[in-house]
Structure formats: structure tokens, C-alpha cells
């Protein structure tokens, strides 16, 4: 067996090599987020867990973008938590560490119940049953050509960068499941194809939380929330 190359003159050469190993993916975009421990440590050094607690719900808030590195074990939850503990007292970093807890929570469920990954854990609490939802993601969502400018903005960001703010994920997931009445599984597969941090457990169980198949009620959003949390010129609808 012949080992693959690990040194390249530049990123373009590395990308070309990955394309050669990935038939059918040649025309897809590549994220500006760079993989590897060096970039991960640089991102960890930049985090502000105290500001995160105050502004994480805003689409331009102090999020950390550590998730792709945590997803693939490049950073451990343990070292990220230990780093945060050095930056403020427990109360100040509570929200940040609680978010790390979500990752641990989903992984524990995943280990106990791998069959839940693509199956409805509970019934929908939306007044509809699973068969009322479409199986496939429509092309207008896959292509970011819906009649909602906000959703098109999120879809374009997802496909280009491989990253979406947590609230943008929730809005887009809710739009897919509740506004368009599409099965959460179709949305989850779409996210996994594009998110750099897409983890089967965190992604799919969060989709089930939005859909209400792993929550007491469905997650909805409204225009007021979207405008409040986004500082940019995103509108909910082009009309």
C-alpha cells in the first residue's frame, strides 16, 4: 500500500489532491476555515467565554468557531473547558461551559441509542404525523433559491463557509421542518453535507429538538426575533 502525500506547496495543491481522492465532489466549494491543530490552538487562544455568555445569541455575537475542531477531536472538550476556567470565574464562563455540556450530552445519547440517529425518537407535537412531511429536500432549498431572503442568506453561508451561527441553524432547521413541512432527516443530511462541524449526534438530535421529536414542543421563530438578533440587512422575505 502506498501512503498518500502530506506535504504540499500550498493549500491549492492540497485541495487538488483531496479532489483526486473524492470522485464526484470536484465542483464543490472549500471553506476558508483551515483544519489542523495549529489553527485550532489559534482559535482557542482567541476565545472570549465571558463575552460569549453575553452575546452568543446574536448572529454577530462573540461565538468561538471552535466546533469543527471539537467535532473531530482536534481539541478535546476537557482542554477547552480548562482553558475557559482560566479566563473568568465560574459564573462568568457558565454559559460557555454549558454549551460544551450540550456536546457531551448529545454524545452520551448517541453512545446509548445509536438507532435514534435517523429515527423519530418521539412523535411530532405539531398536530401532524411523520407521513405528513416530505421525504426529500426541494431544489430551491438545496440551491438557496427560496422565497425567503433570510433563508437564502443562511443557505449561501452554510454552503460557502461550512459554518452557521447556532441561531441561524435553528432558524433554517425550523424553516425546513415547519414552514416547508419536510422531514427533519432531509434537513439533517443537508446540514451534514456542508457543516464543517456537522456531527451526527449534535446535528441530528438538534434537528429532532427543533422538529419536536425530541422535545416537548416544536421550535419556531418569528420575524421580530430574527431582526433583533441580526445586525445586518437580512430580511425574512423578499416580498
Amino acid at each position, binding site marked *: *500500500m502506498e*501512503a*498518500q502525500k*502530506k*506535504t*504540499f506547496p500550498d*493549500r491549492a495543491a*492540497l*485541495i487538488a489532491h*483531496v*479532489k483526486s*481522492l*473524492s*470522485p*464526484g*465532489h470536484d465542483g*464543490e*466549494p*472549500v*471553506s476558508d*476555515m*483551515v*483544519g*489542523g*491543530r495549529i*489553527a485550532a490552538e489559534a482559535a482557542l487562544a482567541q476565545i472570549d467565554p465571558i463575552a460569549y455568555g453575553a452575546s452568543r445569541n446574536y448572529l454577530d455575537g462573540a461565538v468561538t468557531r471552535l466546533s469543527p475542531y471539537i467535532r*473531530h*477531536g*482536534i*481539541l*478535546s*472538550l*476537557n*482542554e477547552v*473547558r*480548562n482553558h475557559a*476556567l482560566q479566563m473568568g470565574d*465560574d459564573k462568568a464562563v457558565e454559559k460557555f*461551559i*454549558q454549551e*460544551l*455540556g*450540550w*456536546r*457531551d*450530552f448529545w*454524545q*452520551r*445519547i448517541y453512545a*446509548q441509542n*445509536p438507532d435514534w*440517529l435517523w429515527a423519530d425518537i418521539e412523535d411530532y407535537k405539531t398536530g401532524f404525523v411523520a407521513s405528513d412531511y416530505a421525504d426529500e429536500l426541494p431544489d430551491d432549498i438545496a440551491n438557496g433559491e427560496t422565497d425567503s431572503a433570510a433563508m437564502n442568506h443562511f443557505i449561501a453561508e452554510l454552503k460557502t463557509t*461550512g459554518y452557521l451561527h447556532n441561531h441561524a441553524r435553528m432558524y433554517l432547521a425550523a424553516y425546513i421542518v415547519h414552514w416547508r413541512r419536510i422531514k427533519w432527516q432531509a434537513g439533517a*443530511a443537508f446540514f*451534514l*453535507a456542508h457543516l*464543517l462541524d*456537522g456531527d*451526527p*449526534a449534535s446535528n441530528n438530535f438538534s434537528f429532532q429538538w427543533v422538529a419536536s421529536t425530541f422535545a416537548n414542543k416544536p421550535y419556531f421563530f418569528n420575524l421580530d426575533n430574527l431582526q433583533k438578533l441580526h445586525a445586518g440587512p437580512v430580511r425574512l422575505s423578499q416580498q
Partner: protein
Amino acid sequence: MMPPLIWLHEDCLRASHNLFDHAPEAKAVFIWDDAYMNAMHYGLKRRVFIYESLCQLPVEIYAGDTATSLAQLAQDGRDIITGKTANPALKAIMAIMRENAKLSAIADVPFVQMDSPPDLRRFFKYWNKAKKHAFSYDGRP
């Protein structure tokens, strides 16, 4: 005695992962498995991210079916050490490898160490128990 083979998979791409402590001199490999990545819905963005991560690790990359490639790399009877994961696709490959080799899956350092399993029916049932340790260095009780 032959040194074991370290199988690094996509959930443990860190040189400080515990699994390296179990065989510090062992050769580490990653199998670039196109069919696996398609089954995981991974597009080019994710693939580049993973490959970039591998380039900074003490690991050799081989392209092919994971189970077949690992069997070939460990055909001299050496043990296999890998990272513990919840991923059923990777667990299935581990089960195949165990048919003909001794394979050990080493857990990462835990986020919290609890003396009994938490209630996982809803997040806050878990968190009310986990937070007693989550604010301790190394998640120690």
C-alpha cells in the same frame, strides 16, 4: 513482540489523544475511505478540513476501504489501537477487525466524571448533575 498499529479515525484527530499513550512508538494510520465519507454525507469542505488536520499529525494516510486496508496493514498479527467513539459506522468496522485481531478502543479524557450515569431524557436533567463537576479542572469530582 510487534508494536501495535494505531488506527486514527475522524473522531480522534489529535496527537495528545490518550490512545497515543498506549503505544508511543507505534505506527499510526488513517484510512481515507471515500465510501465511508459519502455514507457520512461529507462534501469537499469537510474532506479538505480533515486532510489538512491529518497533515499535521504523526500519521500515514492510505486510501481504500477501511476494514480491508486495516486488515492488510495488520496482517502480520499485530494488535490495533484506536479511539473510542459513539459512531456506529466506526464501531461496525471495529467489530469486523476484532474477528481477526485484538483491537482496543481508548476513550478520550472525559468532559465530566460522574459517579453514576446521568438522566439523558432532557438536557437539563443531565446538566443539573453534570454541572457539579463541569466547573472543575479536568472535570474531576
